[in-house]
Every structure is written in structure tokens, then in C-alpha cells.
């Protein structure tokens, strides 16, 4: 039951009728007419609304059902943004969007659309100057113990016109905290979904925390989330993001975390120093773009090469016809 429609994949009040294609929702056999009756009577603009067409995305962060619309055309690349609470995950995403909004490229790729523009703008708003010139960091991502994270979509095209769809998870850090302790915990279902479904991961290590008095706890949290992530990682790329890198941590701390990771089995691993502050010659911002570009590159390298076969087999009717058609 989704909203006023009895069908689980239909959200008629946001997207219009998804199942029957009704122009007037009151004609739909699945629509709960009783529940919406009062509202409809109150609405003066009904006739206009009846005759209007909706689009199948709201602009806000995707939920899992919204992925259907996107995934119907091509498989999007799901990138899991992982790490404990206030490690800078949302700030990283907000900075990425701000960079694109200023025309920055991700390697050879540049912005080609998004179905979650409002979602991006919402998080970027915190890194934008307000009337009082203030910048706030995005607040804590709400832990409403959902099972699917908020998903942010980005379409990119390269100079050859090749299009890719990226979907980033924006999940509360608590999920990963529960998950590192017990993958079957009720509150870890969202984190488990991310681990099961994502094509690549970024693990966030907060330099601020790694320098402070709680650095012992921070190290063990990062290590234990890494332990879970590297389980069944196979060829999926995993990037370690040193967030808030404008703060310099000790080489010993850095070494300890890297050493822990180097012990594991993986195919693609890399590390990136990032910050909302641009750093010398913009290096921290560049690293945000580079981290995504690295993931795209590694995923492309995972694709098998197309098998070669002889097209000129005249005895094979199918292949010879193919050849005739050029």
C-alpha cells in the first residue's frame, strides 16, 4: 500500500498513475477514492489538475521504487557512500554537486542531467552562502531506520557522447555502526542493502576525529566498517576517503588504517584526501572529482572484452545475411 493506491509501486499523488495510466485518478480501480474524497472537494483547481500530466520523478532523493524508472533503460552504477556518523559523507556529496554546478568535470565526463536535482540542491544549500554569508555543514542525515538509503542520481556523458548514470547512497552513519556490530541487526538493513547492491564504495575516514581525543575509537570504527565492506568485495572498487584533510593527521594513524586494509583481499583500492576547503591549488576539490573518475575507470576495466568471431562465414545463413547488410 503506497499512499492512496493499493499497488506497491504506484505513488499517484506524486507521479500520476503508474499502473493503469489513468489520467483521472478517480477512474482508477486501485485508487482509494474514499480517502481522498474530502481533499478533492476542497480543491478548486480539480478540473485543471485532472487534465495535467505528471512526470515520473519528484526531483527529491530516490527511494528504491524510483530506481525502476532509471534502471529500465540501463543499469546505473550504484556507489555506496559508507562510514560512521559525521564522517563527512553528506558534505562530500554536497561538494561534488557544487563542483559540477560550477562546471567542473569528472575526468572526461561532464554533467548531463539528474532526476534528483532538488535532493542535490538541498544538500548543497548548506555549503552555499546565505543572506548572512553563513555556511553550515549538512546536518546529521536522519536515521529513520529505513531499509533503503536516500539515493542521489547523476547522469554524465563523456566527450564521445557515452552516457552513464551514477546513483549515490546518502545514508546515516548509524546504519554502518549497527552493521559493523551485527549485520542482521534490524537497524543494519540499510547498510546491508548498500553492501549487497552497490557496484563500488567510498569509505570515509574523518581526519578531525582521527586527530582528536577519540582517535582510538575512530580508528577501530573505521577498521571494523572496512572489515565488513571488504567481505565479498571481489572486483568492486573501494576508495578510502580521508575527509576533512585540511586537518593533518599523524603518519602513524594513517599507516595503521592503511595497514589494516592492505591485509585484505581486493582488486581495486585507492585513497583520496578531500575536504570542503579547496586546499593548495584546489587539490582537495580535485580529489573529490578524481575519486569518482577512478571508480568509473576501474569499473570500465572490469568489463570483459567483446569476443571476436569471424563474420565472413558464408555457410552460416544468419552471419552471411548480417554481412550483406553491412
Amino acid at each position, binding site marked *: 500500500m503506497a499512499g492512496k493506491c493499493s499497488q506497491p509501486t504506484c505513488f499517484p499523488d506524486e507521479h500520476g498513475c503508474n499502473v493503469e495510466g489513468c489520467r483521472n485518478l478517480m477512474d482508477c480501480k486501485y485508487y482509494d477514492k474514499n480517502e481522498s474524497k474530502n481533499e478533492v472537494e476542497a480543491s478548486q483547481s480539480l478540473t*485543471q*489538475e485532472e*487534465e*495535467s*500530466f*505528471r*512526470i*515520473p520523478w*519528484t*526531483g527529491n532523493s530516490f527511494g528504491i521504487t524510483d530506481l525502476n524508472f532509471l534502471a529500465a*533503460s*540501463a543499469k546505473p552504477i550504484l556507489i555506496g557512500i559508507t562510514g560512521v556518523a559525521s564522517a563527512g559523507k553528506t558534505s562530500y556529496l554536497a*561538494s561534488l554537486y*557544487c*563542483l*559540477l*554546478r*560550477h*562546471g*567542473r568535470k569528472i575526468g572526461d565526463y*561532464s*554533467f*548531463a*542531467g*539528474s*532526476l534528483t*536535482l*532538488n535532493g*542535490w*540542491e538541498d544538500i*548543497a*544549500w548548506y*555549503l*552555499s*552562502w*546565505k*543572506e*548572512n*554569508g*553563513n*555556511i553550515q555543514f549538512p546536518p546529521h542525515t536522519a536515521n529513520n531506520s529505513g531499509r533503503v538509503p536516500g539515493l542521489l542520481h547523476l*547522469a554524465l*556523458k563523456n566527450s564521445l*557522447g557515452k*552516457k552513464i548514470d551514477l546513483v549515490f547512497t546518502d545514508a546515516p552513519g548509524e546504519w554502518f555502526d549497527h552493521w559493523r556490530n551485527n549485520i542482521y541487526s534490524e537497524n543494519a538493513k540499510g547498510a546491508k542493502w548498500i553492501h549487497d547492491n552497490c557496484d563500488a564504495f567510498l569509505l570515509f575516514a574523518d581526519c578531525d576525529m582521527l586527530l582528536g581525543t577519540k582517535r582510538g575509537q575512530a580508528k577501530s570504527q573505521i577498521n571494523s566498517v572496512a572489515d565488513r565492506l571488504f567481505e565479498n568485495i571481489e572486483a568492486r572498487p573501494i576508495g578510502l576517503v580521508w575527509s576533512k584533510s585540511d586537518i593533518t593527521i599523524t603518519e602513524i594513524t594513517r599507516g595503521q588504517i592503511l595497514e589494516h586494509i592492505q591485509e585484505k583481499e581486493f582488486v581495486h583500492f585507492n585513497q583520496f584526501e578531500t575536504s*570542503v*576547503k*579547496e586546499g593548495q591549488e584546489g587539490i582537495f*576539490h580535485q580529489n573529490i572529482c578524481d575519486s569518482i573518475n577512478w571508480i568509473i575507470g576501474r569499473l570500465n576495466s572490469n568489463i570483459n572484452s567483446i569476443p571476436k568471431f569471424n563474420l565472413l562465414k558464408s555457410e552460416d545463413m544468419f552471419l552471411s545475411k548480417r554481412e550483406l547488410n553491412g
Partner: protein
Amino acid sequence: MDNATENSVLIIGGPNAGKTHFGGQLYGRLISRKFNYKISPNNLPADLTIFEDVLNKLAEGKRAGHTEASANRNIELKINDENADNIVFTFPDYAGEQVNFIVDNRRINTVWKQYIEKSSSWMLFVRLDDLKPLEDIINKGIPDPEELKKRNATPPPVKVSDAAHFVELLQMLLYIKGIPSLNKIDRPNLTIVLSCWDIQNFPDNTIPFDVLKERLPLLYNFVKNTWEEKSLAVIGLSSTEKSLTDEADEEYIDKTPIKFGYIINTNGLKEEDLTLSIQTFIGRI
């Protein structure tokens, strides 16, 4: 009209974007028959209500009023160029609020659906002086306390950036028209019109495409990645050449409105013949 090319141009622009003045000035030039494109003498539009207010106001050297919010009319102009090729140019007239309504309410009414389906070319009006400059950590860094003090009551908060607004609008229009986004788009071709060019004081030969790239980089990348190069153009426009008010401008009255206004073509060259913009709109250049 058997040999006429049907070109339905959909003019897309929010409130105050300059659609009405452009319509009036374009019509004035077309009917004068002194420019490249002309209205066929035997095909004068029967009903000129759409242009009535703007033509009267411009003749008096005043600015035109705001198009009423409920208005939804259109006018078909049958025009030909020097080669006597016929073009049917549909000019819809509506209040700019309707465009914002589409994005804000995420729905498109039947009238707009017909406009979109029928159109073969889109003209998106972007008024440069209405764009709120982006100020975020990328170009401004983290503000220092001095700066914080300075701006206590200045610009309103950036909620949804202008670039995101235009990208969403185009994405919605493309969806309603049923145009896939995998390959680059050939039809409808898109012309982005940067209006109120005169008050920007750009140096001569400024290329409009470069201005779009500088001012709205997100929109620039979106359209560049979405449209075929030959189906995409960016031009500058100053319909009235100077800012008109409700007070009569004597120079306007004496010289007549068609002596004012210009476009900046895709190569950055100033052209007084506004009708030449039609070539761009219908994708003939």
C-alpha cells in the same frame, strides 16, 4: 500551403524574461518588410490581439505590460525569406508564471502539452540580470567573520539554483515530448536566448555561448551533452536596446521602434535584423 515548412517555435521563458517585447519587435520588423524575413502580404494574421498592447506601447516609447496569467493564445505568422521559402511560425503567448508553475508543481497541463508536442524548435529565454550568482564553498570558500558581518541583510538565500531550475525544466519538457536522452537530440532544436544583453556591458564580439558557460555552467554542460551541436545555439538579445519605462521615450517615438533592438548572433556579431534570429530558431544555420 503545400510547400510551406511548418516550424512551430515554442518560446519558453519565465516572468519578465522579455518574451513580449521580443514578440512585438519581431512582428514590427516582419510586417515592415524591410528585413530578411517578411510577412507574406496576402497572409496577414487576422487577429493581432496578442501583439496589440506591446505594439501600442512601443510606438509610444513605453514598456509593455505584463501578460495576464491566464492568457493562452497563439498567433500563426506566415512568413517568407528572400528566396520566398515559406515558413509558418507559431508564436504562443502566455504569462511567464506558467513556466515556473511547471517546475514548481511538477505537472504540465493539456495546453502546454499541445504546445510541446506541436513544437519543432524551442527558444529558452534566460534573463542574465535575473540570475542569482552562485556563492558556495567552491568559488567563495568558507566566509571569514568580517564578511559575515558585512552581509547581514543582502541577497536572499539560494534555494534552488537557476541552473538547476532550467535543467529540470528542459528535462521535463523532453520527457513530455517523449525524447530519449541516450543519444544527442536533433529535433526539437534549442536556442537559448540571453535577454537584456544591453545592460550587461559586454565587450564587443562576446560569444553568447561563452557567457552561458561562465554564468550557468551546469546548464551549459547539460545542453551541450544533450543536444547535437547543429541543433543547439545560444544568442544574445536586446529587444528594445534600452530600458523603457512607463514614461514615453521621445527618441523611440521619433525613430520608430524597429530602429531599436539587436541580436548577438552565435559568432558574437551584432545584428539589427531581429528576423535573422528566425534562422537560428528553426535550425537553418
